[in-house]
């Protein structure tokens, strides 16, 4: 695949992922609760788009930095994780890695989530990286809505100190989300 074609596919995949995620968010507030069928179809599209996104990024050429070695949560090869579907419950979560990152970590204090994905994220020092669960995809893809805390008038944004008590938050939140998908019936 040529570089431009790969980029187009990449852009298309990202767009579809963004549209899918916004649909998933919107479906939470639908009357009648979450529709299992619709959520399943959305997650299938998201999975295809994400796989294409990954494979086209890998095909983009040697100019990109290589991804870091496998993180503990490898989403690519575990089909079970991908279809973590919302139950008709108040706060279900899809088990897709990127979606979880967006929904489970409201205060991504360690980084400026407005920034584009840059190769630099792959090369962050381990202490900064280990606070978030990452798969083959890097953190916070650029198509996701910003998750910065809303500031009150007069407040200023500070960089959170490293090694704060939120260190464990990432893991426990995502673990919580996986468990919540499993129904309690």
């Amino acid at each position, binding site marked *: 695949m040529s570089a431009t074609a790969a980029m187009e596919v990449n852009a*298309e*995949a990202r767009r*579809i992922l963004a*549209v899918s995620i916004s*649909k998933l968010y919107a479906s939470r507030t639908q*009357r*009648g*609760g979450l*529709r*299992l*069928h*619709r959520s*399943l*179809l959305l997650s*299938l*599209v998201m999975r*295809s*788009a994400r796989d*294409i996104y990954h494979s086209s990024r890998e095909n983009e050429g040697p100019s990109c930095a290589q991804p870091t070695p496998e993180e503990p949560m490898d989403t690519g090869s575990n*089909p*079970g*994780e991908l*279809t*973590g*579907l919302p*139950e*008709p*419950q*108040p706060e279900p979560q899809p*088990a897709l890695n990127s979606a979880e990152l967006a929904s489970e970590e409201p205060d991504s204090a360690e980084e400026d989530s407005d920034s584009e994905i840059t190769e630099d994220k792959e090369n962050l020092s381990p202490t900064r990286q280990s606070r978030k669960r990452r798969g083959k995809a890097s953190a916070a893809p650029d198509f996701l809505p910003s998750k910065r805390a809303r500031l009150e008038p007069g407040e200023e944004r500070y960089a959170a100190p490293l090694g704060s008590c939120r260190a464990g938050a990432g893991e426990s939140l995502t673990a919580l989300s*996986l468990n919540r*998908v*499993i*129904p309690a*019936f």
Partner: protein
Amino acid sequence: MAVVVVLKANDVQWCFSQVKGAIDDDVAEADIISTVEFNHSGELLATGDKGGRVVIFQQEPECKSQPQCRGEYNVYSTFQSHEPEFDYLKSLEIEEKINKIRWLPQQNAAQFLLSTNDKTIKLWKISERDKRPEGYNLKEEDGRYRDFNTVTTLRVPVFRPMDLMVEASPRRVFANAHTYHINSISVNSDCETYLSADDLRINLWNLEITDRSFNIVDIKPANMEELTEVITAAEFHPNQCNTFVYSSSKGTIRLCDMRASALCDKHSKLFEEPEDPNNRSFFSEIISSISDVKFSHSGRYMMTRDYLSVKIWDLNMESRPVETYQVHEYLRSKLCSLYENDCIFDKFECCWNGNDSVVMTGSYNNFFRMFDRGYRQDVTLEASRENSKPRSVLKPRKVSTGGKRKKDEISVDSLDFNKKILHTAWHPMDNIIAVATTNNLYIFQEKLN
């Protein structure tokens, strides 16, 4: 040069007959029609809407003065079948939208139908009252008791005619059996039982018993993260009371025999067509999801509807359908936009005509399509107010797919995707069809000479 014109042997022409519903373009959400169903004789036509109401139309007897016109359908009964509810445990609202209506075969003077929303099925009795007793000895006509001292004679109360009153009363409520959203109900040919299907389970009910049901299919995985498909529709075989089918979001249909075991998780037959690798896209899985499955009246075939096509399956052949009809193949290149505007999730239904020779399904722009299986013809017609002069013949419509648009053709980009026909019904015996646009019900009849 001689030009030979071969008249098609089957040249049914369709005429506008009636349209029901409000004329304004501003559609109230509660008025959106969500299901249409003829009863077994075709005399009654029921519609359900998003507001939880059921409206039943009755066909007038054919008038002798105008034999070319079959009777019109007029409102027979209207009632509120379901109300919005709230599930306090899950903090979820339960919509009152009527997902399906199914008539029971008539066994006495009254009519019975099953109507369902996402969670609860109700059996309604619709009965007529056209006379009332008059001339009581102890009561006045308005019901007040007479003073005994004024009663000096004895008379026998008699029935006197009154204006026809049609009463609908809920006879059974089948509740609390479905965790997920009910998508189908189907009455068994034994007229004693029926099935209800949600995304993951199918339950078998006895029409007399509301406090329990048998679970006959359960595809819920132990770990919900492993879920890969859901049930999208289910139907009993029209003649064999032990057989039913259910379709899935993966495009497969499973035929089950209830004699095999109590829990029919193992299918007797699996109908699946291998996917065409050339058509693979992001949205292949969505468009292969089956939105409706219907047995033919004969019971020999079944029809499935997925997003772009209608397929006819022979129950004796599982490997592929015997016939495939493209409903709107020109949409295949537009799947991404249809995904963005949510149209790709639309669930179209399909139906057979009385003798299983023609099938019908809806499309966008208020178009609907008919496929004649015998003569291998298809036609696209439109339900619109512009074509609604009484007995005006519907002109076939065409969507231009190539570069050059002929006169009278519509280009794909000018199709109105908000005007969709999801629900259609065909009279069980005659060529009368009911087609639901968003909030209007159109009735078309065959042109009779």
